[in-house]
């Protein structure tokens, strides 16, 4: 916050230089710093307050003391044959990597193309990317179930008989040994957010000039993409990836209805307990834990950014 004050002081110089400058901007600048503080404080209270209330509920024991036993249950060893916390985490991390790779691989080139070459298509693409957000996820899941029902052989046929090519593909996508179907659906779920995040980034840089300059200097298209555009879009890409990651680490409806038992959010929700404290502890844990993971990833991203600059 002291930095903000410093910034305001340095800004006095150009204002003074203009001479007849009314005191308006200066006052506004100061009030800007103040209002910034007010906004940050209010939001901090709003976002942290309920979390603290929930935490206070999870740690109180029956004698009025404090106990963290509710959190202990999350780390308790599950029965034999059950998924462990580590397995669930690894599964979800894998899932989020696949999701992020597909999402960025699909959306980044598409959106750059729209910006550079095909602006007329932008409207259509934007509306399409918004559509997944129009329905509750359960609609998409039931739609997927409908596709499987449609493609499946009649229920009277014996397993493995009368399957056509479409059903065999669908069955492969759905198999439990890999989370492919979930990843494919998560890409769709993430699309509205990723599109907007990338779009904001792409709008804020002068893509056209950057590309022309690089091309004129003899850079190939992949080089332009990787060495010029991606670094410029760093914030947008990181935000998009974070969103995907947080989505995968929090999505429960689709994965549970599709009978996946291993993703981290499903695993957490299915902890065998009827203790309200443990359930609340689980939500607090998942919120803070995923946040912590993202902070770590963010720190890595910083390092990367610093290296690139240096």
């Amino acid at each position: 916050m002291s930095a903000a004050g410093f910034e305001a002081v340095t800004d006095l110089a150009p204002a003074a230089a203009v001479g007849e400058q009314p005191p308006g901007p200066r006052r506004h600048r100061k009030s800007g710093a103040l209002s910034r503080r007010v906004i940050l404080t209010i939001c901090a209270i709003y976002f942290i307050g309920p979390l603290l209330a929930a935490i206070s509920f999870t740690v109180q024991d029956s004698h009025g003391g404090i106990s963290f036993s509710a959190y202990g249950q999350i780390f308790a060893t599950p029965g034999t044959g059950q998924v462990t916390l580590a397995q669930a985490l690894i599964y979800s991390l894998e899932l989020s990597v696949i999701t992020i790779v597909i999402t960025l691989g699909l959306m980044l080139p598409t959106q750059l193309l729209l910006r550079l070459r095909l602006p007329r298509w932008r409207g259509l693409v934007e509306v399409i990317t918004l559509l997944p957000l129009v329905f509750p996820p359960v609609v998409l899941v039931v739609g997927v179930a409908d596709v499987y029902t449609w493609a499946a052989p009649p229920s009277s046929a014996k397993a493995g008989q009368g399957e056509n090519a479409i059903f065999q593909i669908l069955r492969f996508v759905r198999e439990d040994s890999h989370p492919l179907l979930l990843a494919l659906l998560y890409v769709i779920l993430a699309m509205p957010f990723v599109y907007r995040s990338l779009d904001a980034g792409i709008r804020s840089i002068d893509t056209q000039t950057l590309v022309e300059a690089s091309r004129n200097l003899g850079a190939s298209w992949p080089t332009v993409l990787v060495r010029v555009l991606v670094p410029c879009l760093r914030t947008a890409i990181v935000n998009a990836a974070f969103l995907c990651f947080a989505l995968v680490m929090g999505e429960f409806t689709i994965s549970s209805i599709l009978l996946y038992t291993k993703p981290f959010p499903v695993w957490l929700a299915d902890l065998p307990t009827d203790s309200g404290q443990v359930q609340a502890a689980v939500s607090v844990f998942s919120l803070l834990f995923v946040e912590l993971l993202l902070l770590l990833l963010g720190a890595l991203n910083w390092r990367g950014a610093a290296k690139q600059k240096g």
Partner: protein
Amino acid sequence: MASTLSGERSAADEQADASGAGSAVRPRRITFGWLGLAPFFGYVLLIFLVPIGFILYDAFRKTVTSAAPVRDPVTQQFVRTTSSSFTGSNLSQSLQGVYRTSLITSVKLSAIVAVIGAVIGVLLASAVVNSTSRVLRQIVTSAAAVTANFGGIPLAFLFIATLDANSGVLTTFLQNHFHFSIQDDAHLHLDQLSGLSLVYLYFLIPLMVLVMTPALEGLKPQWGEAAENLGASRWNYWRLVAGPVLLPNFLGSLLLLFCSSFSAFATAYAVNSSFPLVTIRIKAVLSGNVLPGQENLGAALALDMIIIVLPLTIIYQLLQRRTSKWLA
């Protein structure tokens, strides 16, 4: 200055298209473009539009089962004498009575929280972007990603633990120390529109922060300085420079927030399971415990949701085109 950087996009691009400004493959540009978009359209078609198409097709069908089913003596299965026919009755039923009410309430709630969330979100995002503390930015960005995806019973419980009339921490504290009742004096009821809006903002504000941060970062500090040097007040700067640059993004994000709360379900259901929302109606028929055999109605409700959102997207596109023109 603003316009060169972002505003006149479409005009510039169209020009670029016409003159082939880029040094890349000129004659086959259009073919190339089509191919470039093919993965996106192909993906969306297969993974999203086909499943949704099945659902929407169901909205126009009604399955009629014969009153007295006959059983196959060997397999014990009912010999199905069902026939399905095309009908508009699901759709008309989905626009009446409780379904109509829930559609209206959903739109109302979503509009309110989208506007509030967008405004607060932009303010928070700009406060963060303008802050020189890198740690703060990092924390806010990651926290926003997580809370933007937070919802359902866990989110509901945070607010129940805080504001519930019987046991909320804040409720009890104010009651005991100030004899102030959140419910009776502040008229904030968690299970009503006001309370639900408060809960929804918990994931909408972060969403706004995430999608607006890159745009706000695109505002160069030099513009502010230049505007200031030219004698513009802060207000003028926002109205004439930053505002127009951000407007398309802001509108798009507003729409995003609207849809995001429009499709939300579990959070509202946990806070007030009888709140009339269209998503709760859909959940009841598609994935409930009480009403089997009404899947077609659920499909019709999903269709209603699209019908409501599509005009909004069209309005948004028109607005965007206008702002682009105005900036050019």
